Every structure is written in structure tokens, then in C-alpha cells.
């Protein structure tokens, strides 16, 4: 459904070419309000290109988008007041202190009291009195996170937000995201590692090489992810295990058959039982593998 109230962000055939170089092509996405949407893909997939088009920093080659009910327009202020943006390759005014920098951004945005960015900084254990140029990469990233969240934006567009943040800070970041969603915000965040977003995202889109590969829920990805099942037999494993439903590959190591399986494992187990299987070990589906599998499948 294409209702402004339920759709925070929508792209139709959104495309960007840099000369002959494809940035992203024919991207169709629909992000619902109050959804956390993961935008995944390896480096060079086109995530930053897409995000910078949404912010009006670069012009689309073709296609269009609507953000918070407004058509994407290049240049004018538009809905940027309602967006919190964390750039992927964050660069800040190095000579300013964190406090000065956030005060500058707050003055350009309007309506952000100092208490707001100070308390956010405190939560992230960010020292605002130090010059940005003297901060570590992780601490600079915190400045970026604070300026993205501080004006209670309706839409957060975060390009690789957790890069450089240590695990403890990542936890705090995740709770910031959840709170923003509780207050009605929508979050669109990119990453090249699925594990960074799987705890947060309701749905993910995977892009590779400038093209959309799949959109699914994290649970859906998990279901479709391949599992590893190891079967121990009394002697040499039977040769026909590969014919069971869902089995993608079989590797024999002595008396053990290591199978990768997509979906239910019943058919494989029935076959194994018929061959007097001695022992069974299964391993949880690895989402990272699923992600990489999609990416590899897409580039084939």
C-alpha cells in the first residue's frame, strides 16, 4: 500500500550512474513507518550512493523517491528538517570541540536545547570538551550519532552507523534506535555486516553490485539460511545423501558426512536413519553465511 502514513520512505527505479560506473540501478524499496530497515551489501554495493541521493546530496540519474510523504527533490530544504543523517564517511570540523560542533548544528537546525545533545553525549560516554580533531575514530563517530539523533527526527538515515564503535557503545546505540522508534521514528540503516543490524532490523534489503538482491525479514533470512548437519555413520556414509530434499552439498570426512541444508532437515534425517546413522550434530544457521550466499548468488 502506498499510503503516506504507513510508508516513510519509498523508491521507484531509483538509479545513479557516475558516468559509466553504476552506483545503484533500479532500486525499489518501501520502508514502513516506525520500522527499522537494514540496507545491506558489501563495500561498493551502492548503499552510500542511495543514501546520498535520498539526502539530496547527489542527483539521481533516473527514478524517483518519496520521503515522509514528500517527493524527493534535489537541493531545496524539503524534509531535511525531519531527517537525522549520519554520513558513511563522517568528516567533522576538526578544530571545534564536540560541544561547539553540536551547538553549530543545533543552531542551523533550530529547536535543539543544549541539554539534549549533552545528555545524548553522556549516554555514549562522549567528552564534549575535547577538540574533534583530537578524538579517536570511535569518539568522532559518537559525535556523528549524537547530531543525527538530537533533533528527534522522524526519519533516521544512518550509513554504517556502528563502524568504529566498540561493543559497549554499540549496545547504547541500539537502545537509542529502539527509543527513537518507540517515539514514532523510522530508521534506515546500512551495513556491510549483517550481524550489526540483525538485532535491530525488522526487515533487510540486500544489495550487491548496484542491484537489489532480496528484501526479507531477518527471521525469513534465518529460515532460508543453510544449516550445517553432521551425520556419523557406522562405516562409509551412503552416497545418496545429496538426493534428500533441501541438501545443497555433502562433504565426506571419514565416517562423517557434513551436509549443508536449506529449509527442513526431515528428509535428510529419514534417509540417514535408513542408513543406520549413529550420531547427528546440527549447527545454528549462520546469518552471515546467508548474507554472503545471497551476495555470491547475485554476482554469479
Amino acid at each position, binding site marked *: 500500500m502506498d499510503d503516506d502514513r504507513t510508508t516513510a520512505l519509498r523508491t521507484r527505479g531509483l538509479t545513479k550512474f557516475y558516468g559509466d560506473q553504476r552506483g545503484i540501478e533500479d532500486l525499489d524499496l518501501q520502508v514502513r513507518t516506525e520500522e527499522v530497515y537494514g540496507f545491506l551489501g558489501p563495500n561498493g554495493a551502492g548503499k552510500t550512493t542511495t543514501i546520498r541521493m535520498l539526502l539530496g*546530496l547527489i542527483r539521481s540519474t533516473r527514478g524517483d523517491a518519496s520521503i515522509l510523504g514528500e517527493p524527493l527533490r534535489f*537541493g531545496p*530544504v524539503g524534509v*531535511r528538517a525531519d531527517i537525522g543523517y549520519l554520513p*558513511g564517511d*563522517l568528516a567533522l570540523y576538526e*578544530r571545534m570541540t564536540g560541544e561547539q560542533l553540536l551547538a553549530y548544528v543545533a543552531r542551523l537546525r*533550530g*529547536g535543539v536545547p543544549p541539554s539534549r545533545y549533552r545528555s545524548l553525549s553522556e549516554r555514549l560516554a562522549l567528552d564534549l570538551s575535547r577538540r574533534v580533531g583530537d578524538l579517536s575514530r570511535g569518539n568522532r563517530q559518537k559525535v556523528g550519532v549524537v547530531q543525527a539523533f538530537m533533533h528527534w527526527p522522524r526519519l533516521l538515515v544512518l550509513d554504517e552507523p556502528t563502524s568504529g564503535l566498540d561493543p559497549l557503545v554499540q549496545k547504547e546505540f541500539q537502545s537509542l534506535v529502539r527509543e527513537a522508534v*518507540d517515539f514514532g521514528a523510522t530508521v534506515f540503516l546500512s551495513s556491510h555486516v549483517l550481524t550489526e543490524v540483525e538485532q535491530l532490523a525488522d526487515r533487510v534489503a540486500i544489495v550487491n553490485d548496484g542491484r537489489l538482491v532480496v528484501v526479507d525479514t531477518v527471521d525469513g533470512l534465518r529460515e532460508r539460511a543453510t544449516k550445517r548437519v553432521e551425520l556419523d555413520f557406522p562405516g562409509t556414509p551412503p552416497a545418496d545423501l545429496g538426493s534428500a530434499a533441501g541438501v545443497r552439498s555433502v562433504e565426506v570426512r571419514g565416517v562423517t558426512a557434513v551436509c549443508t541444508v536449506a529449509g527442513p532437515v526431515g528428509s535428510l534425517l529419514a534417509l540417514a536413519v535408513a542408513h543406520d546413522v549413529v550420531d547427528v550434530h546440527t549447527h545454528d544457521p549462520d546469518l552471515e553465511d546467508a548474507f554472503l550466499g545471497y551476495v555470491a548468488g547475485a554476482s554469479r
Partner: protein
Amino acid sequence: MNIVQTHEHLGAHRAPEDDAAQTAPSPASPPSGPAQVATIASHTLRERWRSLLVWSLGLVGISAIELAVYPSIQATGQGWQAMLEQWPDALKEAFRLDAYTSGAGFLNTELFSMMFPIMLIAVALGAAAAATAGEEERGTADLLLSLPVVRGHVLTGKAIAMVLGVVVVMAAGAVTIVVGAPLVDLDVGVVEVVAASVMTALLGLLFGCVGLLLGALTGKRAAALGGGIGLAIAAFLLQVLAPMADWLEPWQKVSPFSWALSADPLLNGVDWGDVGLLVAVCALLLAAAALVYHRRDIAGR
């Protein structure tokens, strides 16, 4: 609270309440354009004050040195005048030598025909290159332009900071001259010093506007600086060489140096036609810069 939330759509943020921790105020509308322009200009000046201070001290120093040597020039005045009579007319015109031993003529030759213009062009071009091109090359443009700010307002803020910087640096030189001249018995009118300073500042700003346009067009500091310096050198050569070659003479009027300096403001006061011309060209260059800046892809890092 949660029940209310699920029935509300995204746009309906909860109104501000005292309990700040629990409540997200609805996003404020951004400040007015002029307020944002002022914020950007003052931020830009704060980033550049060191450079402006150094340039100001430079102009103060050079003015003081010239004033200090004036008494000895004047003492040997007759000899100078005799020697300068031998020079070709073209050179005399190029360096404004005709009235060298008068106080104003001396300052005109030593400071306002070349030294000050070059320094103020440098100040303006430095500011111009650091403006939008500098933000793009450093990567801060992504953050700045993601805010609810119109690109034209960013450019305006940068241009205002450039103007203020040039005015401050030029004023440092002018004040030194006005204060110092009586101490060395140099006879020059305050009004004329102001007039010459205004023309010199406008000349610097004109090339600064060229730099802003090139920076807005390319996002490259080197293009803004290089293009501005190249044009300034060409304009200066035209101004200096035109009197020496008949075929070049008519072209002198094309050079902004001639708009600013040919009327000898230090001797004759302000020529409002020249001021108008310089201001109009600056305005055109700025409008063009805003136009191209609006349409361009901002370089990422």
C-alpha cells in the same frame, strides 16, 4: 503511552511536556534563512580568524615600513623626480609614478598599485577556496548540506564571511596609514585613503567571487585558487602592459585592475561608476555560483 502511540501515525509526534526524558517534542521548524546565513558566516569567520589576523598584521607591517622610509624619499625628492623623469611614460603610468614624491603619490605607487591589491586578492581567494570547495574536500559538506539549509544560503554565508575578512584586513592597512601618515609628515586625506581601500577591497573581492564560482562549479580548492590566481595575473599584466603596446591599449579597460585603480582613488577619491561596475560583476559571479552549486553533485569522500 504505548497504546496512544500505536494509534498515531508517524507525523503526529507527541507535544513537548516537562518530562523531557519521556517525550520527543515535535521537530521545530528550521530557523529563517537569514539567521542560518548569519550562523554560517560567523562559523566560517571563527574557522579563519588566525589567517585573517596574520594577513592584517602583514598589512600593518608593510604600511608601517613604507611610512618609515617616506621621510628619506622625500629628502632626496628632487633626485628621485629627476630620475623618474627618465623612465618611459608607459612604466610611469603602470606604477603610478607621476606623483611619486607627493605623499599620496608615494603611497599610491608603493602600496595601492600592486602590493595591497595582490594581498587582498590572496585573502579573498583563500576564503573562496576554503568555502564550498574546502567543505567538500574535507568531507564536511555532507553533514552541512544534510541540514535544513538551502545551498544558496550556505554560499551566501561563505561570501559574507569572505567580505568581512577582506574588509577587516584592508581596514588594518588603512588605519595604519591614516594614523601613521601625520607622524612622518605625509600628506594624504582620510577620505582618499578610504576610497582607495574600498576600491582595493572590491578588487580583491571580485577575484574572490571568481574563486567562489570555480569552487562551486568543481568542488576543488585547487581549481578555485588556481583559476582565481591565473585570472588575477592576466588582469594585472593587462593593466601594466597595456600602456606599453598600442594594440593592447584598448584592452586595458577589460581588466578589473583598471576598474579599481585607473582612476587613482588615492589622489582623486571614489569613482562611483567604477564601484558600481565592480559590485555588479561580483553580484553576477555570486549569482552564477549559487546557480551551479544548486545543480551539482556534492563530492563524497
